[in-house]
């Protein structure tokens, strides 16, 4: 059962990720990202992390993809004439394929990995909270301040400036 689910979710995730990369229309790419996120959330559930799956769906599918779609609609970027594949395309594909192959090769020949999952109960909200508020207390504070700084940055960035270059 878990194996079948893994296959289905993996194929779904990779296929929609491919859609993000190759689709000419930005809206379709955003929807591909959304489907990819759904597949990834399913994989998280398979990995005994339902809470992370929930958070992923809330943050990414709820906020990030919606923000992307909003900006795409706002900017009205009509897809221009598709250019034929250049030499750069070939180089990029080769680099990506090379990275993938190196990763698979080192995984297959060098990696020392645990074969079976450790038999532990599914981590609950309490486990996460315990970690976040004891071991990772300082990072949580830092991330909170970073969110505040990002918010201020976005407010400053989206303010209207003078149209002239070198506005004060």
């Amino acid at each position, binding site marked *: 059962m*878990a*194996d079948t689910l*893994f296959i289905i979710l*993996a194929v779904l*995730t*990779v296929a929609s*990720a491919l859609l*993000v*990369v190759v689709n000419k229309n*930005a809206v379709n*790419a*955003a929807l591909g*990202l959304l489907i*990819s996120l759904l597949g990834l959330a399913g*994989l*998280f559930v398979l*990995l005994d*992390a339902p809470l*992370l799956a929930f*958070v*992923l769906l809330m*943050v*990414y599918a709820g906020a*990030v993809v919606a923000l*992307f779609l909003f*900006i795409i609609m706002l*900017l009205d*970027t009509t*897809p*221009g004439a598709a*250019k034929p594949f250049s030499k*750069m395309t070939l180089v*990029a594909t080769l*680099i990506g*394929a090379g990275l993938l192959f190196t*990763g*698979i090769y080192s995984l*297959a020949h060098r990696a020392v*990995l*645990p074969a*079976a*999952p*450790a*038999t*532990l109960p599914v*981590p609950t909200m309490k486990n*996460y909270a315990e*970690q*976040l508020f004891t*071991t*990772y207390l300082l*990072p949580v504070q830092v*991330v909170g301040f*970073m*969110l505040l700084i990002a*918010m201020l940055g*976005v407010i400053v*960035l*989206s303010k209207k*400036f003078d149209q002239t270059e070198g506005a004060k």
Partner: protein
Amino acid sequence: MIALLNHAPLFGLILNNGDTGPVVPAYGLPAYLLLSAVLFALGFIGVLLRKNTLVIYMCLELMLLASTLALVAFSHFQGTLDGAVFVFFILTIAAAEVAVGLAIIVALFRRRHTVSVEELNHLKH
């Protein structure tokens, strides 16, 4: 490539004939890592290929998600919670990054009226 995929340790393949022991999923940590690598490579190719800044951003998100999947898989198969907790931080950072990045793109579009990286080359000339 086919020989590599049939490589039994790659998928953590455990042959159980159904007579002894609990059912062990055939796809172990290596399968998840492979999926993560494929997703990361797809996102990388997208970042290098695409011309639309928004789509480049989506491919960046794809790469982040691939690393997230690897972290969760490691965390699960190792029996620790650290990787899963780290995913929380990645999600937070990614949300902030998207907000700031999209604000920059909107500001850029206001001034230059384009989001194509081919036309945003004023530093080059």
